[in-house]
């Protein structure tokens, strides 16, 4: 049967609209990694001694590690000495005091990306921290947030203004010994966002960090730390894009979340790093460690991610369910088109009693894309009556792509209940024809069907971003069927 997908090769022509480069003067460190590089970064940031030492400890530990190879993805060897570890737009004078002093070219960049840093317009209800290459260029709505006692600022600022909080929680969820990339990040991280929600406060707006890689040959190593104190609530979103470049660029971030008693953190990601071209040239290597600790009783952490970009994505946003009755959730949509590879999933570690976790993963593969779900559900001996439900669905568009599922389950308590469901389907010719017969053209039909497939995940995203995510999915799958 001549299928709708046979002509795929001719038609894969995904366009990446965020591929431009901003022409700003930057100040970059020469490529290479050594204790001197780390001291230089620390000095540039005027960091306290304890942090410099922590970085150096991380670096020394990193030197003892080798790159992990268990993931299902292939890439050329990364030369860590060829990467530049620090790049920032040259400051006009000192650091900008307010957004009005930020280089207009940078503001323009974010406007172009649809992330206005002016406190108005489409994202008027969302506070944004914008990270450009290695540094934060501005955070919006600080005054309104400060009135509620919410701290939302760049990591660099947090180190200076809230050292006691940073010192207490940095590395408390993802220690520098955790893995190769976490160790590297701990040694060389340059900026990121910091957020603290005090007791009993519902954060009055969505918080958001927007990451942009601009400079060539530069790695982005940011760190995000969110602490939600007792009975507080926060919803946080990160977005990211990068210019189109022929060489691969490394992005190795660490995100740590801490939820105290009765606190709730909703962390959503719309990841749209440059995926490389249709032949698999260029693109971001997105190797990220994200973990949340449900420390207090009745706490809750929800990870929602829509992963459409990057040449390779490895990330497993996880929850440590330590407090009794705590809840971990993971909702994921991962799309791979052309030669993209994604190996993503989650770990749910149940420690407290009556802890519950839900995993909903939707993988979509098109072109030569490879998509793996990798998940671990671990029920410790102490976790009586723990419950997990996992559902992993894969959808294939065309015949050259792949979907793989690696669910690991470890149960050490007999009162626990663990449920796993999985399905793999090809996008149905029947479904496409049915849409066609109702007047809907094939590409629109694919978007409709895929969006329907991802619905359970999209409904977890904040409104403004659910719409973004649907559009993004459409762009990612452009030309995936003929």
């Amino acid at each position, binding site marked *: 049967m001549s299928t709708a997908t046979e002509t795929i090769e001719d038609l894969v022509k995904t366009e990446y609209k965020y591929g431009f480069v901003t022409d700003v003067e930057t100040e970059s460190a020469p490529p290479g990694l050594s204790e001197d590089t780390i001291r230089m970064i620390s000095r540039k940031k005027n960091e306290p001694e304890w942090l410099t030492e922590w970085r150096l400890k991380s670096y020394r530990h990193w030197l003892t590690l080798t790159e992990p190879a268990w993931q299902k993805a292939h890439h050329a060897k990364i030369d860590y000495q060829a990467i530049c570890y620090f790049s920032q737009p040259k400051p006009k004078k000192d650091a900008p005091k307010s957004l009005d002093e930020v280089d207009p070219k940078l503001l323009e960049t974010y406007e172009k990306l649809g992330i206005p840093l002016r406190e108005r317009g489409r994202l008027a209800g969302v506070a944004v921290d914008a990270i450009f290459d290695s540094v934060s260029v501005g955070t919006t709505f600080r005054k309104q947030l400060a009135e509620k006692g919410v701290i939302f600022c760049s990591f660099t600022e947090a180190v200076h203004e809230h050292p006691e909080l940073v010192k207490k929680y940095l590395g408390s969820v993802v220690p520098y010994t955790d893995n190769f990339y976490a160790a590297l990040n701990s040694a060389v991280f340059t900026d990121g966002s910091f957020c603290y929600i005090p007791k009993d406060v519902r954060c009055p707006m969505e918080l958001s960090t927007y990451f942009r890689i601009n400079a060539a040959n530069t790695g982005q190593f940011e760190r995000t730390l969110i602490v939600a104190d007792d009975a507080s609530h926060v919803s946080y979103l990160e977005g990211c894009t990068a210019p189109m470049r022929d060489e691969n660029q490394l992005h190795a971030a660490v995100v740590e979340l801490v939820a105290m008693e009765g606190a709730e953190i909703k962390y959503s990601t719309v990841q749209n790093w440059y995926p490389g071209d249709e032949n698999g040239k260029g693109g971001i290597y997105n190797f990220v460690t994200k973990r949340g600790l449900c420390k207090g009783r009745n706490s809750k952490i929800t990870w929602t991610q829509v992963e459409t970009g990057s040449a390779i994505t490895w990330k497993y946003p996880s929850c440590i369910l330590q407090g009794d009755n705590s809840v971990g959730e993971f909702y994921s949509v991962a799309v791979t088109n052309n030669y993209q590879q994604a190996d993503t999933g989650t770990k749910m570690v149940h420690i407290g009693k009556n802890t519950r976790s839900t995993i909903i993963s939707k993988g979509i593969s098109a072109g030569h894309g490879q998509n793996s779900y990798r998940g671990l559900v671990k029920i410790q001996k102490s976790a009586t009556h723990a419950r997990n439900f996992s559902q992993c669905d894969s959808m294939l568009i065309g015949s050259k792509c792949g979907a793989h599922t690696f669910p690991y389950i470890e149960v050490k308590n007999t009162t626990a209940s663990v449920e796993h469901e999985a399905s793999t389907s090809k996008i149905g010719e029947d*479904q496409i024809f*049915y849409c066609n017969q*109702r*007047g809907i053209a094939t590409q629109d039909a694919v978007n409709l*069907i895929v*969006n329907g497939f991802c*619905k359970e995940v999209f409904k977890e995203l904040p409104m403004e971003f659910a719409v973004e995510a649907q559009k993004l999915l459409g762009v990612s799958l452009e030309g995936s069927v003929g």
Partner: protein
Amino acid sequence: MSKPILEIKNLHAGVEGKQILKGISLTIHPGEVHAVMGPNGSGKSTLAAVLAGRDGYDITAGGVLYQGKDLLDLAPEERAREGVFLAFQYPVEIPGVNSTYFLKAALNEVRKHHGQPELDAMEFLTLVKEKMKLMELKDDLLKRSVNEGFSGGEKKRAEIFQMAVLDPKLAILDETDSGLDIDALKVVSQGVNKLKSADNAQLVITHYQRLLNYIVPDFVHVLVDGRIVKSGGKELALELEARGYDWILKGEAASVV
């Protein structure tokens, strides 16, 4: 007489070298209801699929004119927008896609094609409410995903409901009666009858005569092994019911000898 809506001329079609339709000719004028009856495997659904433009069929001879234009030249979505509607024998489930959203998208494609403004959500809902009464449809079906988890009867009813909203020029109903109990059959048939007008036409495909008690055809064609072996008025259906397809088959054999 008015110009035909559909002219099928000596249509030969098959799949992967297997010949299924072996020379079908059929002309349908506005205001007419044609029934195509035939045993299982005779090619009824294939005829419907070829008319609707499903991929994978080879047209080896003959052709089809739709309102004077070459139908087979059009992509399936273009045919739909031009007013060709197929009520599927097996309506397809699309998980996660809301029925109302789907139907609104479909209707707006048709409207765009005809240079009409798209309907907004309110206008669309008004239209839907009106058509729902026609089909005696429970409105919770429309809140659910397209055909997902619908019973056989609900699926068929939803198909005719979509037809009511899209208001096609040529409706092809492929075994809309199968899987319906007698009450549902009545409701669906009444719906179809209400949609009949002087400038549209219906091609009703069925295996059993039963449906034709409710949707009364102007013409009946008997399809056997990819050929129309007999055409007549509505009484042909009754005769077929009384004497079975064997009667025709024998007759055909006799006339060949």
